[in-house]
């Protein structure tokens, strides 16, 4: 019983560590996507302006 | 003491975007210079750098060839959009305070003289918070002239003034220039700019003659 409880705490700790890391990475990837889209849009706009010049 | 306020190779970035690029500017004594440019083109930034309120990213601001240090600030009179006064002090106290900051002798008499000069002697004991816009501007004028500057830096000084006050301000500035002072006026009214000796504008961060 005691071992089981200990393992429960142990797994909770592992979950916290890796889930936190994962959450950080997911957030990074999300904002990366947004940034990427915005950059592409701007580059296209820049080309448009250059062509019309 | 005559002096030249100059910018050499001044760059200013804001949000990693250059507002001013490679600005070279010399304000000769006795010259009346106008700067007119559209909003957001860096006019205010330029005048703040000249006044030493903002630090350029690169480049130098000099007074008579030396960096603009504390002592050189004594030669500048600055009138920006905000009056730079304390709302809780009376008009007289404000002037006395600034006179003391500039270490002028007989601060009280000087303050009284300047209050009479800008026509505020009736409201000397009234708190600045209760002043109208025009009264604040007059007091700000007294504040920036009281230490006898050599250069006046003005950012839209006629904003919100009635015709009479406006004529008074213009007369003041003309007298200042006639006495050998340098005038640097930022405005977005072309007719005001045309009255000056030299007209400048800012285009894409660079200052040009126009």
């Amino acid at each position, binding site marked *: 019983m005691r071992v089981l409880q200990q393992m429960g705490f142990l797994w909770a700790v592992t979950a916290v560590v890796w889930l936190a890391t994962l959450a950080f990475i997911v957030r990074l990837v999300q904002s990366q996507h947004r940034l990427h889209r915005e950059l592409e849009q701007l580059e296209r706009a820049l080309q448009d302006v250059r062509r019309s010049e | 003491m005559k002096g030249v306020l100059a910018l050499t190779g001044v760059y200013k970035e804001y949000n990693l975007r250059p507002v001013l690029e490679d600005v070279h500017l010399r304000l000769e004594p006795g010259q009346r210079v106008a700067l007119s440019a559209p909003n957001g083109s860096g006019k205010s930034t330029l005048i703040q750098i000249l006044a030493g309120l903002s630090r350029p990213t690169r480049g130098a601001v000099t007074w008579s060839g030396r960096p603009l240090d504390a002592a050189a600030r004594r030669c500048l009179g600055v009138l920006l959009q905000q009056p730079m006064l304390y*709302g809780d*002090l009376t008009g007289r106290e404000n002037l006395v305070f600034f006179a003391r900051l*500039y270490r002028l002798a007989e601060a009280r008499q000087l303050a009284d003289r300047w209050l009479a000069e800008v026509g505020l002697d009736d409201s000397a004991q009234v708190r600045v918070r209760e002043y109208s816009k025009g009264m604040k501007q007059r007091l700000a004028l007294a504040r920036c002239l009281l230490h006898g500057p050599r250069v006046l830096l003005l950012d839209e000084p006629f904003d919100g003034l009635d015709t009479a006050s406006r004529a008074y301000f213009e007369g003041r500035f003309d007298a200042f220039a006639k006495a050998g002072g340098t005038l640097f006026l930022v405005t977005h009214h072309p007719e005001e700019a045309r009255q000056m000796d030299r007209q400048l504008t800012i285009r894409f961060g660079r200052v040009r003659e126009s």
Partner: protein
Amino acid sequence: MNSVQVFWTLVWKDLRAEMRGGRFVVSCLSFGVLMVLIVGMALNAAPHLPASWASGLLWMVLFFTTALAMTRHDAKEQEFGGWMGPWLAPIDRSLVFYARWCAAWFMVLVASVGLIALFFIILNVPFPVAFGTFVAVVAAGTLALSGAGTLLATLAGQSSLREVLVPILLFPISIPLFLALIRLTWHALDPAVIAGAAWVEIVGAYLVVVGVLPWLLYELILEV
């Protein structure tokens, strides 16, 4: 010599503005007294507080009132662009910081004298045995506290969250100071408790850091 005169001119300006309805002392005092009252109720009108609790509560009240008052002090300067005035004058700009610190200290001190008196009366705390030590601790403590508060209010001055941010930054930064002041006050209330020189050193260190840092940094923080 001249710098000293300019310094007093700057202090005089703050104090004069305060007397003209600055409400720094009044708001400090009323908020602080209210807190003392609430604390008294929270302790279920305990007839006799242990000296350690009394000193802790006293500094808690003082920290909160100072942190809240500091943002008000700062807002005054922004109103008509007043802060730029001294900035244009031919003076060393860090002088502006020291003057504001001094003015803030003076006002906090005035408020805390009233506050402490009421604290002793309302919570029925016995008069401090080592009175001289007590006065010194309060003076040094409020000096360090108002210095740290003025510095952090300057840092947070450009932030849109200024009002909330000053307490949020001030508390963690000055926890050692808080602990030191509690221990030293405890010692003053009950000299049988030995405080230890390390606490005096911590208060001293805060005073030195707050005294020296702005001289290097003040212009850097405000002039961008």
